[in-house]
């Protein structure tokens, strides 16, 4: 099998080369056949990378420890999900995963745009293929995930680091990678436009949606990263300006800048060089981020370790990207001239420009500060470090300025705002700011920076509400419907604008969460049984310390009673888990009592089992949940903005809106899932009674059977998740006592629950093997179906521009509305 993997990679490399050559030659000779063959090769590449991924995943699932990569990042005891997630757990695999995603995304992008941007396609193909080629090259010569042991391979793997064995591992890296990879598509279109000279605004349309999609995934990935840090690492916060976090943030800044400035180009034909530059820089930063984390140039908890050869290869590639891209920009400067002059500083353009400069400055600041230790060592020979306070000091005012612009920008008119216009627009938002600021001051809330942030949040929210209300009023008067229908119609009519506002609402909520950080309280104490520790209006009492075992790990759990304002409100069970084979790296299981106003966050920081003492770190994190909530709303807004341009013939076409709703609720659901998974299970006394399996067979059964209570998230019964698992263990014990065999016990549970569901793994025989494939097949066909439906929708709208009657009405309505809305602008 590993030989097959390596062979597929080699084939992919050759295919890349062919795709590039055929496309460029085809474009230059205007040979449709060559171009088509280049596209064919490009699709083939996606197929090859899928095969390579399948081979690697197969190796993980079947435990082929002859492959070094598999040996290093998995072991037999790991649950299936983590075996699959181990694919991207290490450096070699993550590079391959990157190429896999890029080949899939690239193919979709080519497929969707192949008719609309015919002249650009060959160059898009070659740019994406060239990027893939670089990464495949890296794998082949330096980091082949399929390389095998030349000597006798170990019998079992080293296992994935326990820290990575959690829900977020399965979802945070893929989301980040999708975000990164999606940014390659706009870059490819940008370069294609530069090379062909088709620099009208058509390419922007193709690029905008991909950037938006990438931006959504990047935001999702960053949020998940924060959640991961918050819930798993146990230091009480979610962001510490670690180089790897920053690497994800850098392209996020520039992509955000692009999504704003693209509006200026569409509306006014300005900032054209700027937009191309942003697309290039965003792509460059995704590569640079990968470089930074993979080559060991910066020190980080995430970093993969030093690797000079990799650093060199990446540097060459990055220099090439920059020279090539900016070479073309300079060559095409005459075509990129702005169509209009800048009119006034009090205009929407100016606000967008300010927003862009600040975002770009943020990106460069973060880049500079992240690289500072490396730079200072190179320049002065003295390694100087900068820490989170330095970042915060700069990013705090920057964030607040951006927040202000979020409130003011949308109210300014294009070209130039008149004074009366300004007064009309800014009256309520400024009032909201002043009232909130006054109220907060009276209440004694700190003015800088939390107070300012709250007041600004109030202002921005007022702005957005005002936009919605005024727009809806205009539409109601124009269409004669009620205000609610008008509101929906308004959003459907200009999805990007109002979707954008909804994104802004999400941002405001996130800022609320960030401002809450200013009121954080933290205490640490070493406590004997019965002692209390007071933090804010909470108090905790250390009740007991218990040590338990399961098949994978030893668990040390502190039992804590929680008092709020002197009243007992519940209990928490923070723990430390010591995974077998990884005892020196225990994982911290944080116990969080969530509330919309504040989280009580308890960490078992240390313990002495014999003395029953425990050290707890107790943190109160006000408003932190608003960050996650804010992301949900942001995703909703992006979903609305991403709806196919013509899919909503009018707000009445409810199906695509439903699809967007579904996508968004899916994202929100995914985000909420961890809280369900991590919600602490109530252990009944019965569950604790049997702590050890009596025979090896019983132990195996504990690992193979799944708790069927329906809330444990398919934990194995050996995981002591709840009383239902205890009941099932009890049943197992009884059956074993009756002398039943393993198969008979299986049959008993299958009969009891009516399916093979209680089995952790389907019985690995004949037809049942298909069951392994089933979830993937469902997933894949679901994706295909969604893609198909999405295409049908968008195409039908294009081919038949709605029903005749509706069209006439629409047209007149639209023109009237346009007039109204323009006035509003």
């Amino acid at each position: 099998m590993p030989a097959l993997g390596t062979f597929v990679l080699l084939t992919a490399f050759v295919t890349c080369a062919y795709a590039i050559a055929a496309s460029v030659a085809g474009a230059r000779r205007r040979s449709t056949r060559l171009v088509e063959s280049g596209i064919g090769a490009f699709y083939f590449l996606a197929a090859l990378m899928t095969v390579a991924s399948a081979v690697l995943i197969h190796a993980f699932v079947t435990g082929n420890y002859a492959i070094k990569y598999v040996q290093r990042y998995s072991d037999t005891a790991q649950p299936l999900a983590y075996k699959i997630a181990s694919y991207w757990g290490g450096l070699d695999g993550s590079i391959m995963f990157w190429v896999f995603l890029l080949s899939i995304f690239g193919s979709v992008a080519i497929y969707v745009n192949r008719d609309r941007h015919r002249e650009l396609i060959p160059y898009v193909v070659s740019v994406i293929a060239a990027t893939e080629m670089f990464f495949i090259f890296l794998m082949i010569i330096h980091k082949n995930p399929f390389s095998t042991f030349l000597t006798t391979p170990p019998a079992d793997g080293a296992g994935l680091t326990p820290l990575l064995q959690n829900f977020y591992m399965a979802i945070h890296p893929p989301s980040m990678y999708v975000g990164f990879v999606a940014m390659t598509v706009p870059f490819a279109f940008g370069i294609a436009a530069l090379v062909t000279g088709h620099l009208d605004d058509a390419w922007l349309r193709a690029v905008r949606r991909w950037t938006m999609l990438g931006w959504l995934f990047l935001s999702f990935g960053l949020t998940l990263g924060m959640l991961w840090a918050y819930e798993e690492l146990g230091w009480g916060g979610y962001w510490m300006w670690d180089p790897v976090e920053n690497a994800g943030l850098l392209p996020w800044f520039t992509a955000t800048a692009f999504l704003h400035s693209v509006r200026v180009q569409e509306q006014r034909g300005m900032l054209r060089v700027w937009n191309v530059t942003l697309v290039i820089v965003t792509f460059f930063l995704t590569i640079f981020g990968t470089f930074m984390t993979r080559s060991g140039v910066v020190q980080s908890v995430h970093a993969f370790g030093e690797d000079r050869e990799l650093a060199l290869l990446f540097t060459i590639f990055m220099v090439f990207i920059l020279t090539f891209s900016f070479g073309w920009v300079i060559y095409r400067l005459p075509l990129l001239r702005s169509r209009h002059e800048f009119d006034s500083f009090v205009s929407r353009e100016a606000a967008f420009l300010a927003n862009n400069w600040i975002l770009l400055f943020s990106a460069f600041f973060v880049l500079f500060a992240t690289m500072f230790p490396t730079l200072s060592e190179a320049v002065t020979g003295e390694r100087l470090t900068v820490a989170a306070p330095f970042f915060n000091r700069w990013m705090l005012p920057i964030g607040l300025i951006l927040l202000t612009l979020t409130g003011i920008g949308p109210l300014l008119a294009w070209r130039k705002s008149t004074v009366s216009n300004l007064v009309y627009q800014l009256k309520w938002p400024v009032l909201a700011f002043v009232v909130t600021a006054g109220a907060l001051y009276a209440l004694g809330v700190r003015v800088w920076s939390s107070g300012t942030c709250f007041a600004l949040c109030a202002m921005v929210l007022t702005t957005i509400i005002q936009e919605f209300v005024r727009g809806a009023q205009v539409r109601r008067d124009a269409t004669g419907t009620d205000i609610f229908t008008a509101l929906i119609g308004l959003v459907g009519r200009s999805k990007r604008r109002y979707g954008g506002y909804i994104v802004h609402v999400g941002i405001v909520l996130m800022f609320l969460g960030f401002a809450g950080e200013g009121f954080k309280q933290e205490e640490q104490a070493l406590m004997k049984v019965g002692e209390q520790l007071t933090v804010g209006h909470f108090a905790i009492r250390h009740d007991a310390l218990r040590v338990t075992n399961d098949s994978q790990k030893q668990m040390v759990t502190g039992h804590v009673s929680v008092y709020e304002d002197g009243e007992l409100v519940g209990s928490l069970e923070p723990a430390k888990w010591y995974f077998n084979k990884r005892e020196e790296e225990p994982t911290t299981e944080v116990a969080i009592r969530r509330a919309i106003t504040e989280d009580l966050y308890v960490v078992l920081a240390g313990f002495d089992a014999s003395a029953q003492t425990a050290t707890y770190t107790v943190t109160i994190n006000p408003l932190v949940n608003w960050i996650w909530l804010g992301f949900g709303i942001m995703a909703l807004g992006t979903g609305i903005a991403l709806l196919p341009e013509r899919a909503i013939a009018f707000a009445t076409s409810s199906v695509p809106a439903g699809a967007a709703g579904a996508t968004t609720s899916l994202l929100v659901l995914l985000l909420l899932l961890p809280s369900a998974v991590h919600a602490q299970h109530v252990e009944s006394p019965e569950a604790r009674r049997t702590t050890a399996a009596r025979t090896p067979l019983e132990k195996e059964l504990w690992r193979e059977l799944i708790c069927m209570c329906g809330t444990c998230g398919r934990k194995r019964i050996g995981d002591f998740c709840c009383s239902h698992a205890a009941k099932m263990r009890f049943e197992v014990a009884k059956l074993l006592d009756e002398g039943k065999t393993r198969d008979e016990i299986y049959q008993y549970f299958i009969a009891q629950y009516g399916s093979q569901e209680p089995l952790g793994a389907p019985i690995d025989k004949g037809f049942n093997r298909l069951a392994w494939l089933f979830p993937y097949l469902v997933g894949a066909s679901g994706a295909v179906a969604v893609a198909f439906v999405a295409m049908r929708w968008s195409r039908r709208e294009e081919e038949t521009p709605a029903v005749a009657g509706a069209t006439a009405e629409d047209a007149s309505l639209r023109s009237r509305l346009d007039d109204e809305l323009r006035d509003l602008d």
Partner: protein
Amino acid sequence: MKPRTIKIAATAAVLVAALSGLMYTTLSEGTEYYKHVDEVMSDPTAWQGKRMSLHGYVVDKSIFAKPDTLEYRFQIQSKGKVVAARYTGVMPDTFKDGSEVVLKGQLGPHGFDVSPNGVMAKCPSKYEASRTPGTPGI
């Protein structure tokens, strides 16, 4: 075109100057030295009172914790030079004899005073399995 170019250039120059000025002043407060124990202990008086991240390895059997408190005393070394350190707070799980640590704090006359939450013990590595020279396998 000319006055416009000048205007833009002047604005840019002022902005750049202001920002780099700010950056410079904040940097001098925000940065700290990153040093190894041997570098600092070869001339301890020169480093006293300066904030830094100190890199070294915990000396075997040097960790003492005052019972029922979070006060720790230990020594770290590199290339034969040793420094005593004091710390009050929660120790990371990976802090033990021989582990590689980075301490944030400053050097005083009696040793290194670690600031709150200033102990970072390096895991072998979070993503890559550790590869110490001479160990076969992996």
